[in-house]
């Protein structure tokens, strides 16, 4: 018996040594891969962050330091609010900021109010024409802003609604609506219908079930969509430049004077326009995948 076992044992011992070696090699390989992945990740992070850091350093220093050449290797020195103050006190900036905020808030409210029922309908009901509706919304999403702005400007002139923040908000709502419908649809779809049914079984009316069960669950997602709409409207420059003349939004104002403005003005302006993105994207980053993942389904 022992004679039959011992060769087997020997083979096993030999094999385990080989496996160990392979295993170790694989581990080493894996560690190497991981280190390489980290290196790539850090490079990519630097690629994104270094330009932002550079412009931020220009926004928070003295105008003299902005104009200096060569610029310091370590900007932010001297640290100062002078450049930013200069930008904010320039003509048309504060009204521009106020206009931008008004437009963005109207857009946000209007698009959420219109999109929420539509999103609910597409996720809760299987109705004839549903796929066609979703497809049309997607197709509309793909149309360029440039194409819409000119005819809307002409229409608004004829209606006497030109150069108004409200008209611009109507246009921005049209731009935001398709995305908002799809996103809110996906948010509703992620809440099982059984929850609503269960609430109704326990005696809630359909409205109560919606109000007390579904709404608290979807609110964060809808809020994220609304925040994204806000950022989109805040950033939008083409339609804003076409549709407003006196009542310019912030990007339209900066663009209009870009050719005649000084570098401190431009750099501080650029960083100021980035602030909402830096703050809001942090809060909604998880929902971004809901939003754009939806588009590809």
């Amino acid at each position, binding site marked *: 018996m022992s004679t039959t076992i011992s060769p087997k044992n020997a083979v096993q011992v030999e094999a385990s040594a080989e496996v160990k070696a392979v295993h170790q090699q694989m581990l080493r390989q894996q560690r190497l891969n991981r280190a390489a992945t980290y290196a790539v990740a850090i490079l990519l992070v630097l*690629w994104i962050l270094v330009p932002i850091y550079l412009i931020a350093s220009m926004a928070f220093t003295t105008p003299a330091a902005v104009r200096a050449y060569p610029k310091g290797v370590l900007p932010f020195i001297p640290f100062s609010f002078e450049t930013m103050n200069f930008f904010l006190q320039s003509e048309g900036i504060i009204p521009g900021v106020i206009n931008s905020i008004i437009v963005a808030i109207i857009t946000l409210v209007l698009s959420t109010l219109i999109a929420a029922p539509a999103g609910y309908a597409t996720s809760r009901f299987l109705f004839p024409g549903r796929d066609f509706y979703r497809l049309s919304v997607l197709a509309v999403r793909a149309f360029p802003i*440039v194409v819409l702005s000119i005819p809307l400007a002409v229409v608004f002139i004829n209606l006497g609604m030109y150069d108004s923040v409200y008209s611009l908000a109507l246009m921005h709502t049209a731009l935001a609506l398709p995305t908002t419908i799809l996103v809110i649809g996906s948010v509703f779809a992620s809440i099982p219908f059984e929850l609503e049914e269960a609430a109704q079984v326990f005696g809630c009316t359909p409205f109560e079930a919606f109000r007390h069960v579904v709404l608290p669950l979807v609110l964060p997602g809808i809020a994220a969509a609304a925040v994204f709409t806000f950022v989109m409207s805040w950033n939008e420059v083409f339609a804003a430049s076409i549709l407003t003349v006196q009542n310019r939004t912030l990007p339209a104002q900066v663009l209009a004077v870009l050719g005649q403005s000084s570098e401190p003005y431009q750099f501080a302006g650029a960083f100021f326009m980035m602030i909402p993105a830096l703050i809001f994207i942090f809060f909604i*980053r998880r929902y971004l995948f809901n939003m754009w993942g939806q588009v590809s389904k």
Partner: protein
Amino acid sequence: MNEEKQSTQKKRKKINWAPYWLILPSLIYLALFFIWPMFRGLGLAVYNDEAALSLQTEPSRDAATAGTLPQGTQVEILDQQGNLIPPDEAGQANVITEVWYQISAEDADGNTVEGWVSESRIRVREENEAGAPTAGSVRTRIGAGDTLTEVYSEPNENAEVAGQLEARAEVAITDQSILEIWYQVRGEDRNQTVEGWAQSRYIQVFGETNTGRIDRGNTGQFTTEYLSKMVNDRFFWPATITTFLLMILIIPVQFVLAIVMALVIQARLKGNSLFLYVFTIPLGISELAVGILWFSIFTQSGFLNSFLQTTGLINTPITFLSADTRYWIIIAIWLAEVWRATSIVMVIVVSGLQAISDEVLEAAELFGASLWQRVRHVILPMLKPSLQVALILRTILALQVFAVVIALSGGDVVTVLANETYRQYSEFRNANVAAAYAGLILLISMGSAVIYLRMIRSQEEMAA
């Protein structure tokens, strides 16, 4: 049995209207602010609302048509007539009216003069409760040798002169008439003389002479005028070429970079959520801000020159962004766009990757597939639907690059189609040519989407 069947049939036939009511507001909104303007825009590009003016045989809206003259035709003005129109019609938009006052006053010799004077000759000093003028004085005529103002027996300059008043003479206004002025004009269209009457708002009169031109027509016509204006514009070809060049330069690099980013996210490193945040930041940054940001790097006293100079690589700053170094501007736009718009592709790719089950990837890894093999044979084929969507979306977005170009080139040295749309509208005040550019962008967007879809389908057919 039969009854049961009928009842189920009835149930099936009953349509649930709730979802339709819920989607209705969005449909109305999109129709109003998306689909209608889209068609209106295409119309602006190929249709001239004011292409021709139809002339009438009599100075009246109800008169027969005498013929038409195209917009811009030089005309002789033969006669003029003011038609009385009721006050309620005078308020209508687009009706240009002239008001005449019936007055009575004393002339220089002390005679009472009664008659009609145009509104432009009287400064109103008193009005009654209804807002109608009751008294005024004759305006002084600056620079005119003849200081007397003529009073006519009828509200018409061709009428008999009832008297003359000196400047500043006090007048009592007893009545007013609202007139619509008509001109009798004669012009030539394709060697045929056309003569007839038209309202004053269509005619631009040259000075005091008896000539003028058709300022705008009242009937529309299809025209290729705007399209040919666009194609013959000196910025058209540079803009078209640069737009396509940028698309070809930007999109492939973006896709490679986005897939690398997505793989990094998929590797679930420590601090993954931080990486995710950083990679998605550019998604929310305004195009204009990105343009300025890269301008701060490439401008003559910018960061790139500063870096090269402090490290001793150069002695004098290089001029990157000038008309002589267009390729540097293109490179700057390229970097700015790759920096800004890769995030969106990354997000789509990541959500596509999440749909691929981990088992598939692990299996591939277990069988000894290298990273490249995994990407090439497992990940890319499974990502195809996401990549397709990202490709269409990116192409359409690439056609809209606008503020980045203005920030980095000033809009003249290097230009793109979206910038030309803006220029035609804002600088040249030509909405029609701008609409033609916009239509071209729409055409390219739709064309490229169709081509992508076709390409992918034909590949699938070949595979099958």
